[in-house]
């Protein structure tokens, strides 16, 4: 024990030294051990150290006595050998995040082929060729070691220079540090999911809100909203699970002010890596435009933005041209507004940090973030044996259905108040949505407008949606969901004019081809921003394929409809009560999955159900709380510069419902935690479409090892290639995967504690065709 103490003391010094060492490219701490011989060899030693970030010395895990771990700088085309010595008292592992390599070298214990982790005291040799270039990172895939400091940047220089020039190149690795033992954090979350939330709604905040409310109706709405959240037993302030973090840039606190030095007129490349265990960041450099040139290691068509949100595990490379010799502040504000990571761009090192700006308003979850219970969809889950949701993993529908929702309370919703578009709508104040009250939205209230699509159910829909600007079906989980569709991918892509930045709802689209005999030919996944205010007289209840049984889907009880039907639509007086808020990106009128699968019902309840669901948000819209006009990066703005894969239809759709128990704090995929789940089995060479359906109220950056994910953002062959897809609360989005890498791969949420508590699967890509199947 004495030895441990001594070495710890030594390591404390080492940890501090590591902090003061700038993580500049070129000053890579991992030196090649065998010169330029091929393959190059690197040595990494993993140790327990003490680290002082907040003023208290705390246990941490370092690589080569450095937190973050040293920069690994590889060259595309070379082969590397990395010897990882485990000097911990526990098992460890290193995963090379985003690298395309053999499964056996991927570094996930128990999942990667033949890899069971690196036992204490052992040295493991990784060896793999580098077949790509770009910005990546590496981290432990054992327990919570990543939170304790075991993460580092990894840069692969391209064989041919990147198609953009720059004079300087800096890594900006963001991370979150807690003085607490990460295991303790999980324990705390398990015994009280709100343990870290000191921004709950309180009686005091209620009084405050009521006092500020302009009129009685607004006050009523506020009360109703509170009651509704209480009824659901959910917390709208649950944005970040864990607080108490100190946010770091390259291991440095804002006060320690990591500085990227530039000379006026130079172009600087900043390689942003989010190595936060549990933190999303909103990144901006006030006064500078950022040109995104690379996403997740892959070059994209340069796109100029003012801000971007970076989810855990994502990387974005941007070019900036700071001018005038002034000091710029690189700001990364955590999504829950608990703090900043910050660094400087300046002409010299050692300047004090610039004062941090006030925090932006903390987001609140809205009704639209509430995915609710979409229920089993009956789609292929990719497992060999049938799989059902385990009890306790799906939030009860009774209190989450549309029963209490009254859309008439939203100004601009009814056709009679359609003039203002959706401006002024604030979903956070939408208590009790009830579509039954929307004029023209159901048969009970006859259509008054023009753009409606009223067809007899038997007729194939010669639908003309062209009059309906900005209609968003992208989130209608009930559409295009049938298993027959899964087997017969006759999808058509809508051509969308994509809105730029964070101003959703402006998209127009033409439906490429809609006469397919039913809605099955339609894929609305690429349309945005439905605006009901300009679609009076729309009646989806009569759209074939929408309120109908679809082959292979599990019929579900009509409970939902029934409840909706019972809702007396009597809340007109709420119109206009909601205060203004810029975010209506979440608006959409998605049918909530199979809730309405059943016979065509001409009652209002049916129409209601058709629109019923909690409108899932536009899956790609990003609301950083930026002022209007700010250009905020979305996945839609990413256009891959090169795509190694042919454009083709997927062989099948695999349903990936992101589920979990927010109250008990465990997380799952398709209602099964990792400990009880079967692997998802893909055939080598097939293209699958993963349909992510986030039924929880948190964002989940889903990371699939070994292969690229191509979110269907509507850019066709230019859809970006990503290793991690951020799936917003309540949203549904499609991601295509070319299963071109044999072996076992981890597939998980990159929120570390979500993964640790169950949101993880093994994906097996097998050479032989599947024997058993779900269809």
């Amino acid at each position, binding site marked *: 024990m004495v030895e441990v103490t001594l070495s710890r003391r030594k390591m404390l010094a080492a940890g501090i030294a590591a902090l003061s060492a700038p993580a500049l490219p070129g000053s890579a701490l991992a030196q090649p051990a065998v010169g330029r011989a091929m393959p190059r060899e690197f040595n990494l030693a993993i140790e327990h150290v003490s680290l002082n970030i907040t003023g208290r010395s705390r246990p941490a895990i370092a690589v080569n006595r450095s937190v973050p771990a040293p920069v690994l700088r590889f060259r595309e085309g070379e082969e590397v050998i990395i010897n990882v010595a485990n000097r911990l008292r526990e098992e460890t592992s290193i995963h090379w995040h985003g690298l395309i390599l053999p499964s056996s070298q991927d570094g996930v214990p128990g999942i990667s082929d033949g890899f069971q982790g690196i036992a204490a005291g052992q040295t493991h040799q990784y060896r793999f060729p580098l077949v790509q270039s770009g910005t990546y990172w590496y981290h432990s895939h054992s327990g919570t070691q990543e939170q304790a400091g075991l993460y580092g940047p990894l840069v692969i220089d391209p064989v041919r220079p990147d198609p953009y020039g720059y004079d300087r190149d800096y890594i900006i690795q963001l991370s979150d540090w807690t003085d607490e033992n990460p295991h303790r954090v999980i324990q705390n979350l398990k*015994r009280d999911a709100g343990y870290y939330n000191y921004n709950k*709604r309180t*009686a005091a905040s209620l009084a405050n809100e009521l006092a500020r409310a302009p009129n009685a109706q607004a006050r009523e709405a506020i009360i109703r909203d509170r009651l509704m959240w*209480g009824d659901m*037993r959910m917390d709208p302030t649950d944005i970040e699970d864990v607080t108490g973090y100190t946010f770091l840039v390259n291991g440095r606190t804002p006060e320690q002010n990591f500085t990227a030095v530039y000379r006026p007129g130079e172009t600087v490349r900043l390689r942003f890596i989010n190595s936060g265990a549990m933190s999303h960041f909103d990144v901006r450099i006030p006064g500078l435009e950022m040109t995104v040139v690379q996403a997740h290691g892959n070059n994209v068509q340069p796109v100029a933005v003012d801000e971007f949100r970076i989810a855990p595990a994502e990387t974005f490379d941007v070019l900036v041209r700071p001018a005038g010799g002034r000091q710029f502040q690189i700001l990364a504000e955590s999504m829950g507004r608990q703090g900043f990571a910050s660094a400087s761009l300046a002409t010299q090192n050692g300047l004090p940090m610039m004062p941090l700006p006030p925090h932006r308003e903390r987001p609140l979850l809205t009704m639209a973030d509430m995915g609710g219970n979409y229920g089993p969809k009956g789609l292929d889950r990719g497992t060999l044996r049938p799989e059902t949701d385990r009890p306790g993993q799906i939030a009860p529908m009774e209190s989450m259905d549309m029963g209490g929702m009254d859309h008439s309370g939203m100004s601009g919703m009814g056709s009679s108040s359609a003039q203002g578009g959706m401006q002024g709508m604030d979903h956070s104040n939408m208590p009790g949505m009830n579509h039954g009250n929307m004029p023209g939205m159901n048969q009970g209230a006859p259509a008054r407008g023009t753009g409606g699509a009223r067809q007899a159910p038997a007729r194939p829909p010669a639908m003309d949606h062209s009059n309906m600007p900005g209609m968003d079906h992208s989130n209608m989980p009930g559409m295009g969901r049938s298993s027959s569709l899964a087997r017969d991918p006759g999808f058509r892509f809508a051509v969308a004019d994509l809105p730029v930045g964070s101003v959703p709802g402006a998209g127009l689209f033409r439906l490429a081809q809609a006469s397919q005999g039913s809605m099955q030919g339609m894929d609305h996944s690429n349309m945005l921003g439905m605006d009901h205010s300009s679609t009076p007289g729309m009646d989806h209840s009569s759209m074939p394929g929408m309120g109908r049984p679809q082959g292979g889907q599990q019929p579900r009880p009509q409970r939902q409809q029934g409840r909706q039907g019972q809702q007396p639509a009597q809340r007109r007086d709420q119109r206009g009560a909601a205060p203004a808020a810029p975010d209506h990106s979440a608006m959409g009128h998605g049918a909530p999955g199979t809730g309405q699968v059943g016979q065509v019902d001409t009652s209002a309840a049916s129409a209601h159900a058709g629109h019923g669901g909690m409108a899932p948000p536009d899956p790609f819209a990003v609301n950083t709380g930026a002022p209007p006009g700010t250009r905020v990066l979305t996945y839609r703005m990413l256009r891959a510069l090169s795509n190694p894969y042919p454009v083709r239809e997927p062989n099948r759709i695999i349903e990936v419902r992101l589920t979990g128990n927010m109250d008990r704090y465990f997380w799952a995929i398709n209602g099964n935690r*990792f400990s*009880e789940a079967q692997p998802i089995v893909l055939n080598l060479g097939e293209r699958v479409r993963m349909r992510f359906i986030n039924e929880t109220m948190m964002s989940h950056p889903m990371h699939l090892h070994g292969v690229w994910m191509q979110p269907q953002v509507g850019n066709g062959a230019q859809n970006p290639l990503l290793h991690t897809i951020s799936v917003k609360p309540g949203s549904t989005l499609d991601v295509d995967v070319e299963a071109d890498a044999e072996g076992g791969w981890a597939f998980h949420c990159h929120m570390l504690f979500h993964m640790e508590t169950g949101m993880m699967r093994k994906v097996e890509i097998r050479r032989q065709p599947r024997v058993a199947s779900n269809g």
Partner: protein
Amino acid sequence: MRLTTKAAALLTTLLGFTLAGGASAQQAASQNAVHDPGAHGASSHEVYFGAVLFEKLEWGVGLNGAPNIARWDGQAWYGTDYDKVWIKTQGELERGRRAENAEIQLLYSRLIGYFWDFQAGVRYDPRPRPDRTYGVIGIQGLAPGLFEVDLQGFVSERGDLSARLELSYDVYVTQRLVLQPNLEVNVAAQRVPELGINSGFNDIEAGFRLRYEFTREVAPYVGVNYTRRFGEAAKYARAEGGKAEGIEFVTGIRLFF
């Protein structure tokens, strides 16, 4: 005697169920470990965790001549998301007397819904005399509106049936100041004279406790507690020199580790 036998049989069944539940869960877990080669090692990524919560640890000063009372109400659990061992204890001490009542429960707890645990096990009351053992079955969880609910049914070794409902609600006044109204109702199916148990409603206990969460772990509080006994239970209480009704001003500490 016949009753006793029946109760014993019931208890055995309950216990058997509890153990079987635990065993089958364990079996399922081990099956998963065996059948899923992708699982992480032996632990299979299942997180074990536990907590100790003393909701009440307090001293009540009786108003209007009611006796001063020390009271505790705590629970602890350990296990996985689905399967846990749960211990509950509560009791009261009157000043200058031995424990007026005390009980401890050992339960198996199983997650059966998003917000609900099913619990079953045994309860032992060393006080009041004569001591008594019960079989317990119940559900505990969070009801719509964010009410903490604990509903339990008991069958004593002598076959007596009773039930208890505990409700509480946390009103966050500020981020750290929490007002907790709570309610406990005890009912019984029959008289048990030796324990002062009435048929029907036995007693109601209601309270307001205002705590300040210095941390989530440590929160001192003040509050009032109102107790009311009914019918024969009240008579029994009076016969023992107590009162049927009482209000106390309480101070205490809530501990949550």
